[in-house]
């Protein structure tokens, strides 16, 4: 039996706010897919159908959009999705070493999910944090910068107890304070 999904009344209210931003309904597709993914953890086909029905758009359209953008999970993922950046700046600063360390630690390869459903690992493209390489993002949310093996150990430990790391603000290095 395929699972059925429904939006809460809160979600529906948010969807109305989103629709009001645009002169048509179609532009709500991406933001409503986000609402759905944050609610259900993924946008597998049954969720895409819900989005299509809610907006009165063809399912084929919503499916086309969901499959174009990499951040939408077209199937169920782990509770925490670890997106390790391996693009140029991160590659130069050890991004692949961090990825492989995580793979060994969790016993899965990039693209896979642990058996207990806790973790997925993905090797992803530049996340716009190149100066803080190597880095990763957790489940489309918080960035973890300047990764080391120790830092990864700590993050995994805290995620196991259900605690997301906090947002790390990386300052603008102020020239005045550097005596140059």
């Amino acid at each position, binding site marked *: 039996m395929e699972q059925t999904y429904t939006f809460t009344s809160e979600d529906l209210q948010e969807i109305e706010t989103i629709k009001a931003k*645009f002169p048509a309904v179609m*532009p709500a597709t991406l933001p409503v897919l986000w609402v759905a993914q944050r609610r259900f953890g993924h946008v597998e086909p049954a969720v895409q159908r819900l989005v299509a029905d809610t907006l009165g758009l063809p399912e084929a359209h919503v499916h086309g959009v969901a499959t*174009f953008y990499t951040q939408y999970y077209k199937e169920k993922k782990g509770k925490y999705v670890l997106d390790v950046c391996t693009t140029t700046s991160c590659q*130069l600063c050890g991004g692949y070493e961090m990825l492989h360390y995580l793979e060994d630690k969790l016993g899965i390869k990039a693209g896979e999910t642990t058996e207990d459903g806790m973790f997925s690992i993905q090797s992803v493209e530049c996340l716009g944090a190149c100066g803080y*390489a190597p880095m990763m993002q957790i489940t489309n949310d918080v960035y973890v910068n300047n990764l080391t093996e120790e830092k990864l150990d700590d993050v995994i430990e805290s995620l196991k107890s259900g605690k997301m790391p906090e947002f790390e603000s990386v300052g603008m*290095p102020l020239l005045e304070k550097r005596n140059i």
Partner: protein
Amino acid sequence: MAVDWKSYKPVIIPDIPNLQELDVYLKNDGYTALKKVVTGSDWTPESVVNEVKAANIRGRGGAGFNAGLKWSFMPKPDGGPRYLACNGDESEPGTFKDRKIFEYNPHLFIEGALIAAYAMQVSTIYVYIRGEYYSWIKMMEKALKDAYDRGFIGKKIFGSDFSVDFHVTSGAGAYICGEETSMLESLEGKRGYPRVKPPFPAQKGLWGRPTTINNIETLANVPLVINKGADWFKGIGVETHPGPVLYGISGHVNRPGVYELPSGVPVFDLINEVAGGMRNGKKLKALIPGGSSTPVLRADQLEGVSMDADSLREAGSMMGTAGMIVMDEDTDMVDMLWRISHFYHHESCGQCTPCREGTGWAEKILLKIKNGNGEIRDLDLLHTVANQMEGRTICALADAAAWPIRNTINRFRDEFDARCKKSVHAVA
């Protein structure tokens, strides 16, 4: 004359604590430029366009086009909707500067976009932020709400006849959506396939209506130009590419980060002084000066080069987004080029055959070379692939993918030859 950067005081992201809070921004002349243009009798939409054009703010999204000149391409208002779409997609590898504006001075960008909207008589502004920047999207949503609540956005701003709406929208993971027409498609709720030009967005943009696209950093310069004048702006940095620049420095340096300095700072000063020199005392090998699509330069090509469009062109590269990727002597250029090619293959939207197939072939051949199975003729094949990609496609992603291939191989030919040699001997 070298640019005097040591005495420079940042203006885009000045050293003022909590400037991201609206009250702090207001205490520091916030929204005075907007007030001036919408209520002052000495400003009209045309005069704002002209002042910004005179300042020659060259687009900070990569192409370096004069912002005021771009605004002047908007057709005369016909009573229908017109749009400004602010590009916060920031996905070019090596680039991480616009998020600093979202985090540390969002109201400067908002004010700049509002002035741009006034100048082009736009009714709705969208800021499109890459989906990965979830934390920064939240910051922008808060800043916009605060500005709405105080009446800087909405109906009859400062009691004038100027009304405008301003919304945040987000992507969901696709580098191509930074290309301006792809961004418009994405904003319209579709797959991000770039559009064929012409028609240009100024004629037919969002929902077929006149639309201008500007980068976040570009717009953040606008209130400064209005408050201090085009001449002040042109006095910062080099004349042909004036103004402050947010340099993003990453890779093998001691202090990577985003630094605001005048345009035209010598490359060696940025690496050795600003970013604290090379990590672990290693020697500099190469630099990608402005994001991954700008051609890599060898250390010996950097003598006397500074970060501005002309100097970099003479050296054989481009300013791009000023996202500098610094590489030390241990860097494997074959691995580096393979990874960049993987990126462009992954991000090609697939509409054009030369791009879809070319990026795939390039990645495959480079993987073969990287794994020690390449032959010298594969390098020629890579050149052929690059030639067939360039200038034959709907958008510039194919060019952006071709340039690194050609230039990295040409400029580090020995290294590529050495990786191929084994199989050549095996054949001989």
